[in-house]
């Protein structure tokens, strides 16, 4: 009996064990019947670029999906490089899914423009809606949230991670009906204004399965203890403001409440932190695996005291107040550390305000054998340090280094940091994400093209000398999906010569480089399955063809040019004959 004659439902059952998108895609290519079976039983789709495919197409191909994840704006939108109104509207998707996926349960959006209208449509049309994650989204207000709260009877998760929410007065939290007891995760950390504490408390009390609660800054510290006592089963907690009058009764109340939370594994929040109140969390430190102190303006000694009590820590986000000495303590205590992110306390100052250097990162790379993901802002670096880090941690997967001053050379030798980053890509063979900074020539790109075969995302700024740099990356990085470049002298040659490569990638962003309008046009005309979009707020780019385009965003798509481009975005290709749907 050959495998192809297995009954459909058996195959479907087998396929149900295959969760990864990549594997599912491969399954669908085996033969027509597998393609058919697979598409009817796929329950989850991830669309990394909402403009790569149309919602109608997605629904037609996969009719029984329960979970959709979409991403909108390019990553550099996080840093103000994408003008307001660029796009990334989710409404067309929601409208299509309201009809096409009436049983949709989960929607996860990143960098998209969501409107109250969209949220209201979700609430009205999707009867089994359970999970809403809005990560770095904008365009909606608490009115929309009120609709979700009121009408999604089975809501389990509402996560507003770092979204920009308008907050006209109104008490959206109290719109959760008394019958709603299903909440498992609530993250409102990004909300600017107060929520009704009594509504919050009542909600917490009636949801026994609540595992994640991330409060916003407006929730006072004096009330935190009260909440914790109602939800001792919490696994993840984000505090509100972490300051109060120094009073022993507040402290002991808080410490007592924390000690009752035996399941707590993740802590965040800590706005306006008063160090005197930090010891209140000491009782949970031994079980903590994630600690986000990236908004906590406390200094190294207090940070050391805290971190030294967290031997199980796997993920630490912290400000550079931790300094090298704090990182040394981290390296000594947290042997299970996988991820470290160090953010700058004063990124726009000219002088270093803290004693955080490359040494801190070297120490962590030495002391933490499982370290695989790094985001590090600092003001100086050396090739030696990078080589050491690379040799210490060949299992590194994500390495993002931001030396704050552009084009800073090796501070010891004054040479470019090519060799250092070269060592990173050479030793860390599984590296998937890399962000470069410092003084860099074309050489570093030669290393990257040669060694970084698993690299999927590369971020570059103020680096390189010529088109050769870009050519090395486009021709050498076999797994490259996303490339984002700002302020580099890369022009037409490398782009045109590697045109075909662009169809194998999700997207390419180039701003303040040297790409001519003519080259963009040529690319757009010759590559019908790419959208070549020029962003220029000062006027039509072809009116000044002698100037390089300011911002260029190229992405593959099967739907041709998008119809929601604002006036400052130009699609510089002929209409594709391959337009589908």
């Amino acid at each position, binding site marked *: 009996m050959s495998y192809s004659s297995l009954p459909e439902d058996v195959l479907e059952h087998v396929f149900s064990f295959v969760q990864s998108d990549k594997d599912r895609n491969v399954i669908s290519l085996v033969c027509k019947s597998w393609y058919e079976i697979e598409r009817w039983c796929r329950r989850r789709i991830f669309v990394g670029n909402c403009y790569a495919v149309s919602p109608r197409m997605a629904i037609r191909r996969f009719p029984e999906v329960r979970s959709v994840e979409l991403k909108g704006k390019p990553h550099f939108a996080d840093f103000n490089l994408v003008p307001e109104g660029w796009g990334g509207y989710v409404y067309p998707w929601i409208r299509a899914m309201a009809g096409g996926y009436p049983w949709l349960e989960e929607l996860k959006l990143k960098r998209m423009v969501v409107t109250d209208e969209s949220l209201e449509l979700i609430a009205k049309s999707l009867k089994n809606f359970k999970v809403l994650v809005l990560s770095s989204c904008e365009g909606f207000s608490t009115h929309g949230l009120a609709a979700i709260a009121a009408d999604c009877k089975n809501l389990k998760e509402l996560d507003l991670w770092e979204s920009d929410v308008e907050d006209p007065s109104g008490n959206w939290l109290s719109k959760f009906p008394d019958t709603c007891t299903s909440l498992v995760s609530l993250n409102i950390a990004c909300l600017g204004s107060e929520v009704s504490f009594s509504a919050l408390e009542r909600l917490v009390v009636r949801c026994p399965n609540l595992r994640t609660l991330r409060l916003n800054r407006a929730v006072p510290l004096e009330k935190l203890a009260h909440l914790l006592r109602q939800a001792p089963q919490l696994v993840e907690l984000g505090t509100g*403001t972490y300051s109060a009058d120094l009073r022993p009764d507040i402290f002991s109340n808080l410490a007592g409440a924390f000690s009752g939370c035996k399941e707590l594994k993740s802590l965040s929040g800590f706005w306006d932190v008063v160090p005197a109140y930090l010891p209140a969390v000491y009782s949970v430190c031994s079980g903590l695996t994630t600690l986000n102190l990236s908004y906590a303006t406390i200094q190294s000694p207090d940070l050391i005291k805290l971190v030294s009590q967290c031997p199980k820590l796997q993920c630490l986000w912290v400000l550079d107040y931790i300094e090298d000495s704090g990182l040394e303590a981290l390296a000594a205590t947290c042997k299970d550390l996988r991820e470290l992110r160090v*953010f700058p306390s004063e990124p726009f100052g000219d002088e270093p305000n803290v004693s955080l250097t490359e040494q801190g990162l070297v120490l962590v790379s030495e002391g933490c054998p499982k370290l695989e993901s790094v985001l590090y802002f600092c003001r100086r670096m050396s090739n030696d340090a990078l080589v050491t880090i690379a040799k210490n941690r060949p299992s590194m997967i994500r390495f993002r280094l931001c030396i704050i001053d552009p*084009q800073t050379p090796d501070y010891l030798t004054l040479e470019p940091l090519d060799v250092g980053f070269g060592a990173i890509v050479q030793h860390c063979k599984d590296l998937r994400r890399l962000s470069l900074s410092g003084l860099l020539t074309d050489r570093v790109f030669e290393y990257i093209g040669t060694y970084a075969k698993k690299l999927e995302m590369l971020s570059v700024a103020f680096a390189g000398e010529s088109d050769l740099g870009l050519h090395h990356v486009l021709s050498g990085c076999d*797994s490259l999906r996303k490339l984002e470049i700002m*302020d580099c002298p890369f022009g037409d*040659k490398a782009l045109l010569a*590697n045109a075909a490569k662009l169809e194998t990638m999700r997207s390419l962003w180039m701003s*303040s480089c040297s790409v001519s309008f003519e080259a963009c046009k040529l690319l757009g005309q010759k590559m019908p399955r790419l959208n070549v979009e020029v962003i220029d707020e000062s006027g039509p780019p072809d009116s000044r063809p002698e100037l390089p385009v300011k911002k260029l965003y190229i992405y*593959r798509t099967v739907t041709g040019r998008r119809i929601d481009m604002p006036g400052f975005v130009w699609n510089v290709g002929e209409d594709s004959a391959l337009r589908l749907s």
Partner: protein
Amino acid sequence: MIHMMMELQLGLALPSIATTHHVRGFEFDLNNSYVYEPKDSDPSSWNINSYFGSSASVPGKCSTTNSSNGNKKRSCDDAFDYEQVRAVPPRTLPLFNWNSRYPDDEDDPRDLDNNSSFGSNKTVDDEDGVHVVGWPPIKNWRKKLCHQQHHIPGGRVKNNQAVVANNGSACGGRQSNSMYVKVKMEGVAIARKIDLTLYDSFETLTNTLIGMFGLWLEDSYDYQLTYQDREGDWLIAKDVPWSFEQEYSWTLVMLALQNFHSNSATPQFVQERRLIH
């Protein structure tokens, strides 16, 4: 002319299931290009796969099968004419050097406005100071909080020194926006305390101080405002812009009205720890 060169160098091989495929470097030319015709009746079938999934596997993926790097480099050099590529010398900021790429475009009067800076990212002057848009790569969300924290006295931190504000500033959960500093006048035993945030210029500050110490305004020209910064150096207050003063005023240890006619180099009084309310 330029167009023709570009056309010749355009690498147009499209990914294909049917044929093995090389993405070459620069010697790939237009004549060998072809348009991909999918065999499947649904032309978008396998293509769409690439869009569903975190790491799409595109069959026949574009990778060079020239295994040795030497090959790649050679082909690159040949077509690229490496020597002709002008290496841009290392630079501090990218605002200045790229005119060399467009040698015919000199002193175009239209270049006077914002659009003209070749390849340069716009610089903005906002509450963060003058900086390049998009750099350093910090999310708005975090930047906003950076600012809010700075306006809390003690949001600034000195290396490993116990900052007074640790215990003081955040008390009550309210952000204290006053900046009290001690002021001593040369020759006067008793020091006074003032809130720096109440003043918007040196003139008003000085005049108030003069009044506080009971001097006549005419005499005020004999006196000069100095302050001690965190390194312990005495500096003349007027040398520094007022906004800087406000921003960094926590470093002010002491304001001293110093008599010009005095011969002493530094004010002669006991150094006091700064007092921030």
